[in-house]
């Protein structure tokens, strides 16, 4: 094929190779190689201590008899529950800022500020609010919802919900923006036409707005499922690398970090990572199927 290229085309091809070389090189080293190398790593005992040996499926046997791994997997699955909550609140927020009232732009910006700030800063702010003497307990008591101070950070039954709230709070503005774009891309003629045809407000929402918003709901759900399984920073900042108290906030990413960078048990960490990656892969293939059905190739 190369022989068919003219002299000018050849020089252009040379230029092209020169241009893509740095990017491709970096991708090979830091993206392709880890994918290729990460797989066999899961079948070895690679660690800081031992000489590396091929140990077959031992890491996987170990994972499925490791109570901490089960706890982390369970907590990660519970975490996915935040996804529908985020979608509902984000859509309501998008509807709220989709009005043409004055200063609505100011509110859109205000809602987006948690998105741009670091999770460390957000988690520190929330950690402080969750303290027993913190503002949250004060508000709850003032509203008469509790009569004693709740130790949100210490009691295992509140800890996971506590970090979930931070995740939701920080992500809302992001999804709100996507839904706002979604709402604004629905041509108003469609809604007006329906109104003229005698549809009431509920019917317009049910038959036009919701179906046309569905691709956005699926896209956002996919993004937030991925986010929920990878959630790390907020737990690391608020509950440390072990997911305290008593493993109650231990999720798979935190557990992988602990195994890899605290126990330096890289082979086992790679195996855990592989199991989680396969779960994510199945999940996203499933979601992609549905997104296609919903039609990401969207009216425009």
């Amino acid at each position, binding site marked *: 094929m190369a022989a068919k290229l003219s002299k000018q085309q050849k020089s252009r091809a040379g*230029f092209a190779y020169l241009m893509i070389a740095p990017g491709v090189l970096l991708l090979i080293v830091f993206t392709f190689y880890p994918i290729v190398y990460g797989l066999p790593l899961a079948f070895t005992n690679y660690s800081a201590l031992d000489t590396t040996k091929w140990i077959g499926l031992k890491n996987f046997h170990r994972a499925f008899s490791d109570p901490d791994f089960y706890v982390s997997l369970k907590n990660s699955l519970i975490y996915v529950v935040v996804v529908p909550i985020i979608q509902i609140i984000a859509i309501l927020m998008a509807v709220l800022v989709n*009005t043409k009232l004055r200063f609505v732009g*100011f509110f859109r910006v205000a809602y987006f500020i948690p998105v*741009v700030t670091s999770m460390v800063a957000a988690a520190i702010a929330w950690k402080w609010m969750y303290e027993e003497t913190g503002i949250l307990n004060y508000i709850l008591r003032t509203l008469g919802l509790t009569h004693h101070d709740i130790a949100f950070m210490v009691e295992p039954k509140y800890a996971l919900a506590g970090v979930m709230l931070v995740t939701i709070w920080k992500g809302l503005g992001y999804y709100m923006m996507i839904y706002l774009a979604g709402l604004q891309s629905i041509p108003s003629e469609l809604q007006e036409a329906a109104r003229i045809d005698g549809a009431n407000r509920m019917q317009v929402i049910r038959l036009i707005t919701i179906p046309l918003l569905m691709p956005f709901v699926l896209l956002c759900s996919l*993004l937030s499922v991925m986010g929920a399984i990878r959630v790390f920073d907020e737990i690391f900042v608020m509950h440390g690398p072990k997911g305290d108290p008593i493993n109650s906030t231990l999720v798979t990413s935190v557990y992988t970090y602990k195994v890899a960078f605290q126990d330096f048990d890289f082979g086992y960490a790679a195996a855990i990572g592989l199991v989680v990656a396969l779960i994510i892969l199945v999940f996203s293939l499933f979601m992609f199927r549905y997104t296609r059905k919903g039609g990401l190739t969207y009216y425009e």
Partner: protein
Amino acid sequence: MSNATPNRGIERAERTSAADEAGQSRQTRQSRQSRQSRSSRPVSLRKIISAIIVYALLVFTALLCLGPFLWLLSTSLKVNANVYKFPPQLIPWPMNFKNFSDVFHIMPLWTYIKNTILMTGMGVLLNVVICTMTAYPLARIVFPARNFVFYAIVSTMILPNAAGMIVNFIIIQKLHLYNTLLGIVLPSAVSVFNIFLLRQAFITIPNDMEYSGRIDGASEFRIFWNIMVPMVRPAIATVVIFDFMAFWNSMIWPIIILDDKEKYPLAAALQYLQGNLSYNFPYIAAGTIISVIPIIIIFLILQKQFINGMVGAVKG
């Protein structure tokens, strides 16, 4: 509607506080004028009530979104003794601005800020330069194996990168980049997502631009640099904004790669210091506020592009 009056008060307060948002208010003023000229009939009571409800909800949601930061700001202005006061002081009195100057003495905050700027600057620059260079030929030059390269790159977005962080750590060690700035930046110096985004932008440029350059005898590089790159400025802006945010806020990778706490960027340093300084919360609060101010300022300046970039990138 017993709470109608206080809501109006809030509404008025919002109006004045939002007035300095020049661009925004100009835009809304225009739309209001056009609306007024269209319908000169008196506004109905129903409309007023619904506006009041909407504003009340808007203000309430804004409080929920900004509340934690406002509380942090309030804490950062307190003297340590007032922090645990019950009931909590919403507005700190006496206001103690000293915390902000003190944190600079207690921790090497300037060093952390410098590190963060260096890390972010380098990360963004490398991404813009390398991703633009990679995306351009994939979009506009026919060369052998082009499709293979493109699909190989895109496929990494789908394949699970199970041990990515672990293997990258091993690679960084083998390259002797452990505990260096380059070690933090290099693994994310090119992103598949950016290449995809920029390639998309290059594809949409009409061929005429390229032909006219070629007829004038411009070199391949000149066509790329003087004609093509300026045409994809919005896509580059999106890349800059995304990566700026990602690098500025990154915490865990710097913690893994850096041995030396002096080399930490802000987010990593805050995580490290909140354990050591937990006895004095106003200091941590002040440090946290200082760390978020630059990114919020950048966001406020670029908010239009920021939000468009976000939405555009997600919608693809």
